[in-house]
């Protein structure tokens, strides 16, 4: 997976693969923003390698935008959306890639450099590079949030994992997020089902929805392929598919964005509608669209500005190219204002996509919507040349786009490169044919087109040659099927050149078509395409035409349905079948005279709900395209553009022929309109003129392209990208649809980067628990069983499960497995996780469920469940015992740690020791600790403690139970900690019981030996208890005693202590436990501290990205992890128990405890005893300067190793030499 690894992780900050110069704007004239985060600092974004000129001008014009943006807090947005096109001078050079932006492009941001450039990936084509953030705004609409978040997860997951990670890819889990995201989007927009009124009513919506779904189904299909490839172990293919999936996921989001845009545009005018309707009804004269001009102010500026600037730069052609390519790539109908500069068709297209409905006049809006809702009789015009042109161009661009995208991903295998180039070349050839057709149709235009056609041809040729060279070299030089990055650069350049040239050519062609009128042309399916020399590309160019034609026509048929914004046709809304029924002759342009003054045209509308539709469409329609743009551009936060003084530029740079003076002037007016618009962007001076001219210009559009011809042209270019696939995927789409319609709560889940659930609502968690796609993640399931009582009641869980059982019935495909899993959840609960005292409340519900619902579907399962339900209420403990392995990863193998054949060590007991114990039991004198072998004492302690430790149940560790109500809810935890404390007290007691210094020293030495043995046994609990006691103030202050203990023993104690040092949160101990193989007895207190902090430090709920408050499952996962870690050690030692010694030890500990009960606290009495034994005066005389606080003096022998641990404070180091 070198190729994945070569891509930096999304979140990493050092992503910047590119050299960036931090440049301050010296061109910004406006500097009134004192905000340190002001964008004016960031802008103008310096193009990485000195192509500042281009940006420079732009940046100056955008100072005002920047000011607006400066007010935003510096939040990192994962997604940005370009509100303004950006065309860098040098797209590619050696080390940097600067991305061109089209308006509306959505960008996945990886990092943002302080200079304002962001390292991002364009969703539209998967290209990655630098882009200026000041051209973008944050993109995070509510409806999309879930999908965007899913994309992020998807991206992280795909990037982070290598293709061999079968665990992840095997279960297709990663697909769920995207699907749920799409579902969420559709649900939030009330477009979940095909039958939903919105979808039915608005065809634009319907199409976009369909396109979105088809893309989704592609992804699903690809994911399946991935699964297969993975099983086969074909790493290369896996990588390839992963790349494809990422691109597809991008596309899905892109389409989602587009869908939402369309919806927004449909929706926006609806609000002011009602009032307007009534007004309109009162006087049959439709009011002027309110606030239209201001709309222009707000929205039209940048586009026209761009246009005029384009001309200013004398770069019209280039701009046009981008405009045209935008046609293919654009996300929103109105996002690319540039297109209007060059092609009226684009305008018309925009118009049609949205319908002329943006007008703030609802009635007309409605009527229009109605009219376009059904299939238009005009729709049958797939042979229109303009249509063909668009289609071909779109296909070509989509090929190139994905090609470029793949280049950016740096993962080309030779075959796929060859394939991609071939596809591109083929589709390019087809496009050229269309251009040729236009040329031949009207000889007069040849001159205009010739040049750009030739340029385009050359570019494609160049691409093919480049690819060929590279492929040839690769065959010679390289072992692997991978194209080296340097070659990528060349290919990228060639491909970009293609895009450019093609855009230019298509733009001109469109412009020409605009002039000469559209016409129909029968394309010959057989011999389409200008052939490029593809022979070097070893693969056979397959079915170039079949790819082109059938799907093409299908897509056209599919999309034309909705296109016609014409009002004068009666259309049945209910018939949604995209079958064109009427063929109109459409090659005769019908000049549509602008009728600003008499705008009402009655429209026969055969809509079932026409009550409020008052046909008032005409003026609107005339202005439609501009209004459309306005509406779609009507963003409140759009920064006003500065006025520029380029209003009188030479226009129409490539219009050598003007068929009619009318057209010419119209065209001019259009031009001037765009400029006016730009100038009025920031001022009101030009308002009237502006609106006027805009109307005029739109009229001119109409004049050249009559309504009838518009229909086919209006085909949304972007959808073409997918509609080529649509036909073959009809069933797939249905499949996805049915999946989407499935009720799901998947969007209510929150994941972390590793793909683990960190939060979710109860239904969502239950759904996860009963997922049909895969066996549920073991950790998740055990966490759920263990902790669910912390976030819901048993009754609530039962209800959620039953509900899951019910609602999954709606989706026939997954109902069976999900229901079985639901049953399994119940079964697992009753068998192994039932806790009678709390869960009893749910038992009746479970029985009822088994008797009624489950019995109806899975009778035998119902019977089994009923059986279990009967048993749990009488059983003591789990019916099916929970194994240690039920939790935690390593626990599963826990039992294998000690091979059974390992011989159990013989007890280190002498006959006399045994006899002493027997005598003691018979009532004789009590032996002393000194009488026994330290090893055996350590062993018996360990056995005792481990049996306590093993009896700790996971439930006891939940919710800080052991700290509450004196630990009633956690008896075993309490017993364990009591034993540890008892042991400590025993140690102190045995030392302090002797009056002789030497005896005490002997006992200390003995305990040090025992501690050492405990350490060898990895009994850290006892080690902690003993070292604690030995360093307790009562013991440690016995200076005379310690002086008698040998240095060697003291050193030993020191090192023993360091292993159980609690400083830095038990860092040393954690390190020891980390890879410790059982048997091992960790210090329980450490787990208790961890669990307490997890419990207290993590809130019970969290807010998901969609604003939903969900269960903080992460908290429970952490709890379960900690418990799982504890359980990992619940494996008994293989040691022989010496019953008598055990008994003696217990009795000794009890004896000390009894003392405790009788008198005050043990520590205090030990301290008193200690003072008696060695009065404190002695010590104080020895350290006159410092109070006898060992931690501070640092001179004590057990000064907590502070000096060793590098935490010495100034005081200590200063006082140490004293």
């Amino acid at each position, binding site marked *: 997976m070198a190729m994945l690894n070569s891509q930096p992780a999304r979140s990493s900050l050092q992503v910047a693969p590119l050299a960036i110069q931090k440049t301050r704007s010296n061109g910004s004239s406006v500097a009134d923003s004192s905000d340190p985060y002001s964008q004016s600092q960031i802008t103008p974004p310096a193009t990485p390698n000195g192509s500042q000129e281009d940006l420079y001008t732009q940046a100056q014009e955008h100072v005002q935008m920047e000011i607006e943006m400066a007010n935003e807090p510096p939040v990192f947005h994962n997604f940005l959306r370009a509100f303004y096109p950006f065309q860098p001078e040098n797209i590619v050079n050696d080390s940097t890639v600067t991305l061109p932006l089209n308006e509306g492009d959505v960008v996945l941001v990886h990092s943002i450099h302080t200079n304002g450039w962001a390292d991002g990936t364009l969703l539209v084509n998967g290209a990655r590079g630098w882009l200026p953030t000041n051209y973008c705004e944050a993109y995070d609409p509510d409806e999309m949030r879930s999908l965007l978040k899913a994309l992020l997860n998807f991206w992280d997951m795909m990037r982070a994992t290598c293709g061999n990670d079968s665990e992840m890819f095997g279960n297709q889990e990663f697909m769920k997020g995207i699907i749920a995201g799409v579902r969420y989007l559709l649900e939030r927009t009330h477009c979940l089902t095909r039958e939903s009124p919105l979808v039915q009513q608005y065809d634009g919506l319907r199409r976009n929805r369909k396109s979105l779904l088809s893309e989704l189904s592609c992804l699903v299909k690809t994911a399946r392929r991935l699964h297969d490839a993975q099983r086969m172990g074909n790493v290369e293919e896996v990588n390839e598919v992963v790349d494809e999936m990422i691109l597809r996921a991008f596309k899905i989001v892109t389409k989602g964005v587009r869908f939402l845009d369309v919806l927004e545009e449909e929706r926006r005018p609806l609000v002011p509608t009602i009032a307007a309707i009534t007004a309109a009804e009162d006087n049959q004269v439709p009011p002027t669209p309110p606030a239209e001009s201001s709309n222009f102010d707000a929205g039209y500026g940048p586009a026209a500005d761009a246009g005029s600037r384009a001309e200013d730069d004398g770069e019209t052609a280039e701009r046009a190219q981008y405009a045209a390519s935008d046609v293919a790539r654009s996300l929103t109908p109105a996002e690319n204002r540039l297109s209007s500069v060059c092609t009226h068709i684009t305008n018309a297209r925009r118009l049609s996509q949205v319908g002329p409905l943006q007008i703030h006049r609802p009635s007309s809006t409605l009527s229009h919507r109605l009219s376009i809702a059904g299939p238009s009789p005009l729709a049958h015009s797939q042979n229109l040349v303009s249509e063909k042109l668009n289609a071909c161009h779109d296909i070509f661009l989509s090929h190139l786009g994905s090609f470029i995208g793949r280049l950016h991903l740096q993962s080309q295998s030779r075959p796929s490169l060859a394939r991609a180039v071939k596809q591109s070349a083929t589709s390019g050839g087809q496009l050229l044919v269309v251009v040729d057709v236009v040329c031949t149709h009207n000889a007069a235009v040849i001159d205009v087109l010739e040049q750009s056609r030739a340029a385009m041809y050359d570019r494609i040729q160049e691409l093919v040659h480049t690819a060929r060279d590279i492929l040839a070299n690769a065959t010679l030089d390289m072992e692997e099927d991978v194209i080296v990055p340097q070659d990528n650069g060349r290919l990228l350049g060639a491909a970009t050149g293609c895009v450019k040239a093609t855009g230019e050519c298509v733009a001109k062609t469109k412009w020409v078509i605009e002039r000469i009128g559209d016409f129909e042309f029968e394309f010959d399916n057989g011999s389409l395409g200008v052939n490029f020399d593809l022979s070097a590309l070893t693969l056979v160019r397959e079915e170039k035409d079949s790819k082109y034609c059938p799907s093409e026509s299908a897509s056209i048929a599919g999309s034309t349905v909705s296109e016609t914004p014409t009002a004068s046709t009666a259309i049945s809304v209910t018939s949604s079948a995209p079958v064109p029924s009427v063929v109109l002759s459409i090659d005769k342009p019908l000049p549509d005279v602008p009728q600003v003054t008499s705008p009402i045209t009655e429209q026969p509308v055969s809509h079932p709900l026409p009550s409020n539709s008052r046909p008032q469409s005409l003026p609107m329609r005339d202005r439609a395209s501009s209004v459309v743009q306005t509406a779609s551009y009507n963003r409140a936060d759009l920064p006003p553009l500065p006025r520029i003084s380029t209003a009188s530029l030479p226009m129409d740079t490539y219009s050598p022929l003007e068929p009619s003076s009318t057209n010419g002037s119209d065209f001019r007016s259009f031009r001037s309109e765009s400029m006016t618009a730009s100038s009025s962007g920031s001022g009101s001076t030009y308002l009237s003129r502006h609106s006027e001219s805009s109307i005029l210009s739109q009229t001119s559009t109409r004049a050249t392209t009559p309504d009838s011809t518009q229909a086919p042209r209006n085909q949304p270019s972007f959808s073409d990208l997918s509609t080529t696939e649509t036909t073959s995927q009809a069933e797939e789409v249905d499949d996805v649809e049915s999946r989407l319609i499935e009720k799901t709560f998947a969007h209510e889940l929150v994941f972390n980067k590793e793909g683990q659930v960190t939060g979710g609502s109860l239904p969502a968690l239950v759904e996860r628990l009963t997922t049909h796609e895969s066996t549920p993640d073991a950790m998740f399931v055990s966490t759920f069983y263990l902790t669910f009582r912390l976030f819901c009641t048993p009754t609530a869980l039962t209800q959620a499960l039953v509900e899951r059982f019910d609602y999954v019935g709606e989706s026939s495909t997954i109902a069976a497995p999900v229901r079985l899993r639901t049953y399994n959840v119940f079964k697992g609960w009753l068998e192994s996780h039932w806790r009678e005292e709390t869960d009893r409340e749910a038992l009746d519900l479970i029985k009822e469920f088994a008797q009624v619902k489950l019995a109806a579907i899975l009778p035998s399962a119902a019977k089994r469940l009923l059986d279990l339900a009967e048993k749990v209420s009488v059983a003591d403990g789990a019916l099916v015992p929970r194994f240690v392995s039920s939790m935690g990863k390593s626990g599963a193998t826990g039992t294998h740690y000690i091979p059974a054949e390992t011989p159990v060590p013989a007890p280190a007991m002498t006959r006399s020791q045994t006899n002493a114990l027997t005598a003691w039991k018979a009532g004789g004198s009590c032996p002393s600790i000194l009488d026994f072998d330290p090893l055996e004492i350590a062993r018996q302690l360990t056995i005792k403690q481990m049996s306590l430790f093993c009896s700790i149940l996971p439930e006891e560790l939940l919710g800080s139970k*052991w700290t509450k109500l004196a630990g009633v809810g956690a008896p075993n935890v309490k017993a364990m900690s009591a034993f540890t404390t008892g042991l400590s007290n025993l140690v102190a007691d045995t030392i302090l019981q002797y009056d002789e210094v030497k005896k005490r020293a002997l006992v200390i030495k003995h305990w040090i030996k025992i501690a050492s043995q405990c350490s060898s046994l990895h009994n850290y609990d006892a080690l902690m208890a003993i070292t604690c006691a030995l360093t307790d103030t009562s013991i440690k202050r016995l200076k005379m005693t310690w002086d008698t203990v040998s240095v060697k023993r003291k050193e030993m104690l020191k090192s023993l202590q360091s292993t159980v040092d609690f400083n830095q949160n038990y860092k040393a101990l954690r390190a020891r436990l980390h890879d410790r193989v059982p048997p091992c007895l960790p210090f329980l207190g450490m787990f208790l501290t961890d669990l*307490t902090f997890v419990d207290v430090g993590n809130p019970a709920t969290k807010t998901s990205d969609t604003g939903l408050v969900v269960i903080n499952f992460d908290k429970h996962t952490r709890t379960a992890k900690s418990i799982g870690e504890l359980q990992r050690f619940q494996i008994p030692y293989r040691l022989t128990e010496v019953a008598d010694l055990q008994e003696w030890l217990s009795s000794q500990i009890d004896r000390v405890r009894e003392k405790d009960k009788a008198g005050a606290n043990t520590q205090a009495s030990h301290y008193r005893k200690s003072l008696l034994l060695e009065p404190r005066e002695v010590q104080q005389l020895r350290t006159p300067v410092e109070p006898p606080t060992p931690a*501070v003096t640092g001179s004590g022998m057990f000064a907590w190793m502070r000096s060793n641990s590098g935490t010495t404070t100034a005081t200590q180091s200063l006082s140490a030499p004293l």
Partner: protein
Amino acid sequence: MPSRFTYQPVREYHVVVLGAAQFVHNEWIESYDPTIEDSYRTQVTVDGRQVVLEILDTAGTDQFVAMRDLFLKSGQGFLLVFSIASRSSFDELATLREEILRIKDDDTVPIVMVGNKADLEDQRAVDRARAFGVSRSWNAPYYESSARTRTNVDEVFIDLCRQLCRREDKLEEQARDELGQKMSDEAAKKRRRRRRRKEKCVIL
């Protein structure tokens, strides 16, 4: 006095949180993971001086009575935390304080008294005046805080830090005076150099 030194080492203190503990000092970490370093180390700036605190919160291990001695010994400054909603948690502080004084064998050990869960005003069981009275008798500042709403959490640590710093400054001065008496100038210089080296090591 810090001002006498041009070079100020980053000081590091051990702070022990006691009482109705669970006074999570950095709850703002969205997912609290006790095993990461941030969960027990924190850096504060007191009077322009950087101080690193290593915080020992023994939450959850109250039952290990024998360990308390050890915990207390390791601390240089103490937070005595009780819940304003629990009278018993307040009453326990007296015992804890005695133990601190006994183990540290020092009546001037820096202590700050904290009435936590101040966000539960409606459940208040400990009178503010009463708590304040006790704190004055102990000569320890009193704060009411809320780990949940993060009210006064930083202030508590900063106050404790300030006490610790002043105390250390005083000790340093004392030590220097003694040094001056006991040693020749040359020896003092040497010692200081040594100390500086040591301090550098601390930073590294």
